């Protein structure tokens, strides 16, 4: 029995990846099926079963809420694409740190100022991209739940992103590598498309339902 208890504990840890509402409804039942499918003496979840549970958890998180219009669903997918683009940029920056440093060291041997400036810029990149990922995730989380403020915040974020891009490109303070520019352009386009979709009429009804005549105060504060 202790083997099964160990296996159960490990499965529960994996099931913790699912949204709480899904777990409340299904956890005990999935666990029963997982344990019924287990082999005698098995103590660890199999690789395929674990991957399947993680995939299922991702699907459960990404699933659109009932009543979500198509425009909102597409905007939310774009927001996830934005998160992915930020992550890809962060991974690229981290992975190429060494080669950037050595290129600068070759180009400006003995010039400590150049190397310090590279270090500072890299830290700015790490922090900026990490903050970007957090902001996009929070906005997406709130947009999925139909929070009215999230739509305004997404538009505000898009405007500030546009302004900061214009200022840095216009000011010429930074020398942009083609890769930097293209990542920035992709993220900007994704944000633009998401904002356009979020401010269509059908999306508006999802975020700010019209008050009904019978209950004039209900619905003005967004969905439940």
């Amino acid at each position, binding site marked *: 029995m202790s083997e099964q208890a160990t296996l159960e504990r490990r499965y529960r840890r994996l099931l913790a990846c699912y949204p709480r509402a*899904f777990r409340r*409804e*299904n956890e*005990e*039942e*999935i*666990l*029963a*099926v*997982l*344990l*019924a*499918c287990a082999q005698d003496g098995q103590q660890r979840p199999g690789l*395929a*079963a674990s991957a*399947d*549970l*993680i*995939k*299922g*958890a991702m*699907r*459960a998180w990404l*699933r659109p809420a*009932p009543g979500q219009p198509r425009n909102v669903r597409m905007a939310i997918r774009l927001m996830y694409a934005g998160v992915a683009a930020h992550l890809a940029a962060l991974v690229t920056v981290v992975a190429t740190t060494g080669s950037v440093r050595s290129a600068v060291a070759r180009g400006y041997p003995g010039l400590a100022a150049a190397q310090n400036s590279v270090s500072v810029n890299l830290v700015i990149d790490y922090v900026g991209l990490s903050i970007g990922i957090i902001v996009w995730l929070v906005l997406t989380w709130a947009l999925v739940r139909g929070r009215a403020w999230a739509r305004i915040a997404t538009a505000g974020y898009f405007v500030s992103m546009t302004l900061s891009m214009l200022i840095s490109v216009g000011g010429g303070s930074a020398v942009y590598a083609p890769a930097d520019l293209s990542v920035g352009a992709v993220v900007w386009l994704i944000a633009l498309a998401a904002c356009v979709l979020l401010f269509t009429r059908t999306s508006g009804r999802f975020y700010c339902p019209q008050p009904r005549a019978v209950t004039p105060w209900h619905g003005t504060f967004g969905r439940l």
Partner: protein
Amino acid sequence: MTARAMQEATYLILTALASGSQHGYGIIADVSEISGGRVQLRPGTLYTALDRLRTDGLIAVDREEIVGNRLRRYYMLTTEGERRLADEAARLHANAIAALRRLRPDLAAGLA
């Protein structure tokens, strides 16, 4: 509703429930049998699909039992689920006939 093709796992789960209510483990075994062992549903996939199908109103909980201290929930097709499964089966049938008619006209004549 747009007539989008149903995913195979969804189609097989609904087919498994077409002959009567079943619990999760039963559906896994039945889907394996229906597909000739080709599709082995895993619990994560199954319950994500069941949860979605319940939200969409294609299946419902028939009854719950406690077996050996564990919850066992039986699922059944709703009227809407029956209709969607029948529509999908007709669509697949028509597609299969269309393909066979071109590949093997002799066989297709007997199936249509």
